């Protein structure tokens, strides 16, 4: 269980995250929505401890992770793996090395500097690459891959960390719809099979509705909605995005969800077994 108590992050006199409290049980798949600048990325970075909060605490399994320092902090980052909108892979390194880098937190410094990864780690990396179906690209440099492929490599790297939590900051915002669906399906699959908690900030409302069991809406650094996708009514959405007149877009969005649902059902019928 992740417990966030009154956490704030200020940049100058701007409260990017403003007194947020939140409890996320283990194994939940959570979507964070909100307009640009609402504080979604900041919140995720605070949980991974890439950034330090100005105020407040975060607890995980009873331990205050906002107090972690040194080795313990690095361990925590390994445990709470992150995925980014821009993938954040090291572009000039090949896919396989990037995936192996997920093990850096488990390594002594000196051997890792010479890329002395064990056979077992390599086997593990292949397994993760197989899972995201990108093993055939393993020796390609990352900047030669498409966005969707890079994001799958990033998921494989995150899985190498053997994480208990995956924090995904707009994992599909730079992807075409098909790659986006693949990435979201992989994340849901990881969440269901491994029981890993997934917290994803998402721009695309329909994806949040479709893949997440819980949706958190943020505006101006505060949480303004927290509930099931079904509870996310038109009024709530307008509140989160602070718009008066998004009717058309919203209708379109809702239609989208219906369509996706139908498609899924259709596929289930079509494929026997």
């Amino acid at each position, binding site marked *: 269980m992740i417990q966030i108590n009154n956490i704030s992050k200020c940049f100058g006199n701007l409260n990017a995250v403003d007194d947020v409290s939140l409890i996320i049980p283990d194994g939940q798949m959570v979507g964070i929505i909100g307009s640009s600048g609402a504080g979604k990325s900041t919140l995720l970075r605070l949980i991974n401890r890439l950034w330090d909060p100005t105020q407040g605490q975060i607890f995980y399994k009873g331990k205050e992770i906002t107090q972690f320092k040194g080795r313990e902090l690095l361990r925590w980052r390994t*445990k709470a793996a992150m995925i*980014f909108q821009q993938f954040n892979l090291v572009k000039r390194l090949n896919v396989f090395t990037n995936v*192996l880098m997920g093990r*850096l*937190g488990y390594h002594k*410094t000196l051997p890792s500097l010479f890329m002395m990864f064990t056979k077992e780690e390599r086997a593990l990396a292949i397994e993760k690459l197989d899972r995201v179906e990108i093993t055939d690209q393993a020796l390609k440099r990352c900047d030669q891959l498409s966005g969707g492929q890079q994001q799958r490599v990033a998921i494989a790297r995150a899985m190498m960390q053997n994480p208990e939590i995956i924090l995904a900051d707009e994992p599909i915002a730079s992807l075409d719809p098909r790659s986006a669906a693949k990435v979201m399906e992989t994340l849901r699959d990881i969440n269901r099979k491994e029981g890993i908690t997934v917290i994803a900030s998402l721009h695309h409302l329909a994806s949040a509705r479709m893949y997440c069991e819980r949706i958190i809406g943020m505006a101006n650094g505060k949480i303004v909605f927290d509930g099931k996708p079904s509870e996310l009514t038109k009024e709530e959405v307008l509140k989160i995005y602070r718009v008066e007149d998004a009717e058309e877009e919203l209708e379109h969005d809702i239609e989208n969800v219906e369509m996706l649902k139908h498609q899924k059902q259709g596929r289930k019928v079509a494929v026997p077994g």
Partner: protein
Amino acid sequence: MKSNTRFSIEKMAALESKHPLLFGSTFQSRFRRTLVIVLMILFTLFTFVWLDFNPLRIFLGIGKFFHMLSLFFPPNHGGWFNEYLVGLGETLAMAFLGTLLGFLFALPLSFIAAKNVNKNKGSRLLMRRFFDFIRGINTLIWALMFVHVVGLGPFAGIMAIFVSDLATLGKLFSEAIENVDINQIEGTKSTGANGIQIIRFAYIPQVLPIMLSNALYFFESNVRSASILGVLGAGGIGLQLWDRIRVNNWKEVCFIIIMLLVTIAIIDVLSKKLRDMIMANQEYRP
């Protein structure tokens, strides 16, 4: 005057007074620009007069120049060809070792001077001042000092190149480090990698190609400087050159200069090829 604009006069005037900067230059800005240009021309003329730069003197000296050229030809090695080759080899080795040492020391030190890596302001500024201080002293002066300290010979030349390259490369490297793509750093940091691992896996792949290509470029120019260093007592081909100049043996001087030109041309071509290869292709295998 026929108006071919969609804007009324009032509207135009209103826009102009609202956004004066978007309607071309004003009288003030034109005046300022003219003043700057006039001042620059005056300053240039002043330096010409002050340093007695007179194109006429070149014309008057042109006869002497041709006379000197006639002394150069035909070039002749005077039976010292093997000695020249050894000298040239020495010069190349001096440039190579000096650059290599400079590169090896600049690599770690540049991280200390980079703002995004070293958050400790004191040590960072100290490292920068150190680079600036060394760079403030010309390689030739360093060579003179080292000749005094370690005696005549290539070792002094190596040290001179090493020290001055260390500073210049260090500064260039730290700038490359400060320009890395922050996303790649953040991604690596988020895995729980420690500081040294982040440098190894996120910084080095981004900056090493730039660093290597810079170092190669420096090697090229160091071959040129190394031949001058020889004149100051640092051995190599420069020493032979200086000996010939002192006794006015211009045909042999010419021969040595041609040898140097050919060598430098070959190195330039090779180094360009290598640098292109480095920048284009860095497959890493774990």
